[in-house]
């Protein structure tokens, strides 16, 4: 779980952060304006490719993607 958190956090920083904004496991990503709704697409695709899962569109909500911790919980639901 910790390794997964670190992988996702690093992806978010590399993908979306273009200044020195600090990102922790609890930083609000969508509601905090770091990840916009357009960009959620690539985050979902990254997770699906990385962990070989399929996240249904209706589960990929802004709330479920709003922090690294929440994303890990979501991913773990679909890992077999």
């Amino acid at each position, binding site marked *: 779980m910790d390794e997964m958190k670190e992988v996702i956090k690093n992806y978010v920083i590399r993908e979306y952060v273009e200044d020195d904004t600090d990102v922790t496991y609890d930083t609000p990503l969508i509601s905090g304006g770091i990840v916009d709704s357009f960009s959620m*697409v690539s985050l979902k695709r990254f997770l699906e490719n990385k962990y070989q899962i399929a996240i249904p569109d209706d589960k990929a909500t802004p709330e479920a993607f709003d922090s690294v911790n929440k994303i890990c919980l979501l991913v773990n639901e679909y890992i077999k």
Partner: protein
Amino acid sequence: MAYTEKTRGIYKEILGGLQQAGIFKQERFIHSAQAADIEVEFPAGSSLKKVINICANNYLGLSSHPEVVQAAHAGLDSHGYGMSSVRFICGTQDIHKKLESMVTEFLGTEDTILFPSCMDANGGVFEAVLTKDDVMISDRLVHASIIDGIRLCSAMHDTFKHSDMEHLEEKLQLHNDKRLKMVITDGVFSMDGDTAKLDKMAELCEKYDALLFCDDSHASGFIGKTGRGTHEKCGVMGRMDIITTTFGKGLGGASGGCVSGRRELVEMCRQKARPYLFSNTIAPPVVAGVIKVLEILSASTDRRDKLENNTIFWRKGLTDAGFILKDGDTPIVPVMLFNAKLSQDVSRDLYEEGVYAIGFFFPVVPQGQARIRTQISAGHDIIHLEKALDAFRKVGKKYEILGKTKQEIIERYGM
């Protein structure tokens, strides 16, 4: 009639909020034709002031060119004022087809379709050519009209960091399973004046079998050796799949736009693009004017050459004076001030000195990147630019920003 006081109050509150936030837009009334020298009424009701205009998209100085005006008059006489019909019913004249053919030749594409504006072209093109099985991968700084067009399309959408080709390649790999991939960019970015790396993008698109789309509204007519646009500058003429552009900027400045590119994609727009299907196209006098513009630009590169020289003179003048500019070589020259209020104060003082230039700040540009965006024209003579430089130097001295670093300006005025 149900416009109650309650309803009115809702809107008044919203508008009041815009005023309080300092983002309420006010028009300045110009009483002359669009040109380097204009007469402006601002604030409303005040007497007219003659100023040098350095914020128009009139890059080639053709907005009021006598030959263009004359051609528009002739078009009005020969083809009438309006069409009273959309294109596919009874709204297509011979001059519409002639203009489409001329644009195709000018841009070096396979076919062209006119739209009422480039906003409409960008609003209609994506949903016409892509489906939910496809993906659009856009630069993060593309124009608002592209973002609106993307929102209207059912294809998946992803972004890449501004002009970051490694990031674009990652995205092309990530979405390689899609039926069609389209990479989307502006040619020249309107707020920063930088140019897309179309040569690298074309290579990546060929490597990953993706379509390449470019909105060249701030480039058509003057970027590239013969003014064909960003694709000419980057050496990729003939390798673009879709170019959208406007006739509302360098190409005469009136109105109208187009989608130009691969024959089948243009035909898809003719069959499916909603702004084309459900709105009248460009009015006959404007069509006649744009035809004349393309004739002028195809006969000589004098105007784009003058614009290039003016831009070099302007950039050097501002740099020597000690202003901080965004890097680039296009006629869009942003003078960086970083602080929103400072950008408004400098704009106001420049106006007092006879120079019309607008300050831009968040949310139009990122937080802490407020600026005066200057736009140079072939309609400017060196004497205009020298006068404008005098005004900039005087105002810059007043605010003690000449020769100062970004950090020093921010320390004094804040972000």
